[in-house]
């Protein structure tokens, strides 16, 4: 048996010359320091990509890229096809891990100065790999074609539409019309399975060739400056003097780490299961609070927090500035110190970026500003706020529900959190202030003047005035001794 394999192997090898090409690649010398656990993230990302390709092909066997069938085919995988859900979960979690792993890889490369001379091109290709991976994550989310997907696409399209001059054309090209429609899904399917993966594979090849040609970045030492004249010579010396063969010395860590990563993906898939599909995408179903996948949560949060006038500016400039900065970096700072110990600003930048990302993502997860669309009819007015109330105040509570104030304001911890909780609003605002707030709105609150009859305003405000703890008196208007009391009708 064994001899049969090896004879087939040597037959092939004689003709293909594989060992001739591969042996030097595998065995090439790398600086001893780089056989380190810090240098494993790139290869793990590559292995995750391979996992995505394999699971993706399996999914494509079943998936129906038509607007009216996509959702059903995923449901079929989830509930009918044995282990279909697991396949979906692997692909979904693989994607999360790949984005995460790639980010870690980029941070490591950034901090270790690996993007400096002569590896600028490797970095540039890496930046495009990162963008393509985000592109895969985004288009992948659309493949689900559920409400979350629809939402993510909606945001993406509205971002794109704001591009000056060409915006509408780009939208048309991408979604196949001015709005998300029947053709949209097939376009995104083509992007997700042909265009972007094709780009990715091509870029990966270039990236790897470059890594091999230029050598793995040596462990950076403070004070060991990069100089265009001497760097390559010094690197050769270092490898000659203190090098180890890539395989197995360095590669064994890559293999172990990649294995652990894949196991982690499997565990996540088994424990947390597939993502979605979360409800039929149907623009008429307004009662859900859709949410993008986690890599876009920070974006979602940024949108929700920004004042409207800043949105366009930020949407159009921030990505461009960010990408240009990443691309220009090796040309502007391509020489000098490599070690992060000697580059405090770089460390600060990474920390800052991470803090912003994590905070925004957390905000995106809890998303207090997105209204709770069901609250008005689903969350009962807490009974303690109704006990001992007059019929007018009771009606006021009904108006509060009916006018959907609860979608933004919570009572007793239930309801939206876009506006402040109203449990003790009467201790903060006097009757006049309450009336003004309700009629004129302000901040992020709409003005209700035109949508409330005078009787509704009176009932609503009478109810709001009762919202204060028993031991804490309502706010009083010093200029009006009778404030708080209802003026005679």
């Amino acid at each position: 048996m064994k001899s049969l394999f090896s004879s087939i192997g040597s037959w092939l090898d004689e003709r293909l010359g594989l060992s001739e090409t591969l042996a030097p690649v595998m065995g090439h010398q790398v600086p001893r320091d780089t056989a380190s656990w810090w240098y494993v993230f790139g290869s793990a990302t590559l292995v995750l990509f391979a996992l995505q390709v394999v699971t993706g092909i399996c999914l494509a066997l079943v998936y129906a890229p038509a607007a009216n069938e996509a959702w059903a085919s995923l449901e079929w995988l989830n509930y009918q096809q044995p282990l279909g859900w697991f396949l979906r979960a692997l692909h979904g979690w693989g994607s999360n891990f790949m984005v995460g792993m790639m980010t870690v890889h980029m941070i490591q490369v950034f901090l270790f100065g690996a993007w400096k001379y002569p590896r600028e091109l490797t970095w540039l290709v890496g930046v495009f790999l990162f963008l393509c991976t985000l592109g895969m994550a985004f288009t992948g989310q659309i493949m689900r074609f559920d409400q979350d997907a629809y939402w993510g696409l909606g945001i993406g399209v509205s971002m794109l539409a704001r591009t000056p001059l060409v915006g509408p054309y780009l939208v048309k090209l991408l979604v196949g019309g001015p709005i998300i429609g029947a053709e949209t899904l097939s376009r995104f399917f083509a992007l997700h399975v042909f265009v972007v993966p094709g780009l990715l594979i091509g870029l990966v090849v270039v990236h790897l060739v470059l890594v091999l040609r230029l050598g793995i970045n040596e462990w950076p030492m403070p004070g060991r400056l990069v100089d265009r004249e001497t760097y390559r010579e010094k690197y050769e010396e270092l490898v000659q003097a203190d090098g180890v063969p890539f395989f197995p010395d360095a590669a064994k860590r890559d293999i172990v780490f990649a294995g652990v990563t894949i196991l982690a993906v499997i565990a996540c898939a088994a424990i947390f299961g597939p993502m979605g599909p979360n409800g039929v995408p149907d623009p008429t179903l307004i009662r859900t609070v859709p949410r993008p996948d986690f890599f876009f949560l920070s974006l979602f949060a940024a949108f929700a927090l920004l004042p409207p006038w800043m949105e366009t500016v930020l949407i159009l400039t921030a990505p461009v500035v960010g990408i240009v900065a990443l691309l220009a970096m090796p040309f502007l700072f391509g020489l000098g110190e490599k070690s992060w110990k000697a580059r405090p600003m770089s460390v600060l930048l990474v920390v800052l970026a991470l803090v912003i990302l994590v905070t925004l993502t957390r905000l995106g997860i809890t998303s207090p500003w997105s209204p709770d669309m069901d609250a008005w009819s689903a969350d009962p007015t807490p009974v303690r706020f109704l006990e001992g109330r007059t019929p007018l105040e009771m009606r006021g509570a009904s108006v509060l529900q009916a006018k959907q104030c609860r979608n933004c304001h919570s009572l007793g911890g239930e309801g939206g959190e876009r506006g402040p909780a109203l449990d003790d609003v009467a201790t903060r605002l006097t009757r006049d202030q309450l009336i003004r707030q309700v009629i004129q709105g302000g901040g992020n609150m709409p003005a209700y003047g035109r949508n409330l009859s005078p009787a509704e305003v009176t009932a609503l405000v009478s109810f709001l005035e009762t919202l204060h703890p028993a031991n804490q008196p309502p706010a009083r208007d010093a200029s009006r001794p009778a404030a708080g009391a209802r003026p005679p009708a």
Partner: protein
Amino acid sequence: MTSRPGSSLLARTLAAAIACAAIAGCDSLPGKPREADRPIRPSEVTDFAALWGTNCAGCHGADGDRGSSTPLANPVYLASATDAAIRGATADGIPGTSMPAFATSRGGLLTDQQIDLLVQGMRSRWGKPVSPTPPGIDDATAGDPGRGAAVFAARCASCHGQDGAGGPKAGSVVDPDYLQLVSDRALRAATIAGRPDFGMPDWRGESGREPLDAGQVADVVAWMASKRPAPIVATAPAAVAPAHAANPAAAQPTTTRNDHVP
């Protein structure tokens, strides 16, 4: 490979067994989507508790009572209201009040079938025989406000105050703003079915009293309704109570009432 053949066979069997167990066990992995979590369209929901919980609990209370609006988990209410009326109120809403229309044909989100399910669900969950039979809520006998005042003084004033403007145990039922937000039907419902959830007796009155008859109910409702200011119409801003003078919204009333105009 110098290991004994037996042990390698054992190892293979073991591996195969583990693989089988793993595949069989996948069905019980925590990540496997459960049939119960399967998303369904809101229009496909047929569970009473879910329908009630998302659509009605907000105003009528989580359990059908102790909400801001008419308690429906009240056997007396259910005994005195017809299915058609309950269905009608749910489907078309009650104009001029905070009760919205729920039928899809009226811009709501419930199908006719779901509304029927709600009506049946309320009856089977909360309804039970009541004796004596209460007057019908939908009985549209016109009452006499004059006689109603007397009924009120005798039966209601102990809680709502002599003139109905609020007393020791309950608030005003003649407040003009309140009356503009409540339909005559709801006044009848309160008079007949009470608010047992907040301590208001039904038509039988406090213990030891004679139940009100249909005429008395109509009279006392007519008396309360007679305190309602003229319906707001855009051409008659003077009808707006002075309390709203400082209120910019007063200039553009949006609600017109039509259900209590004789």
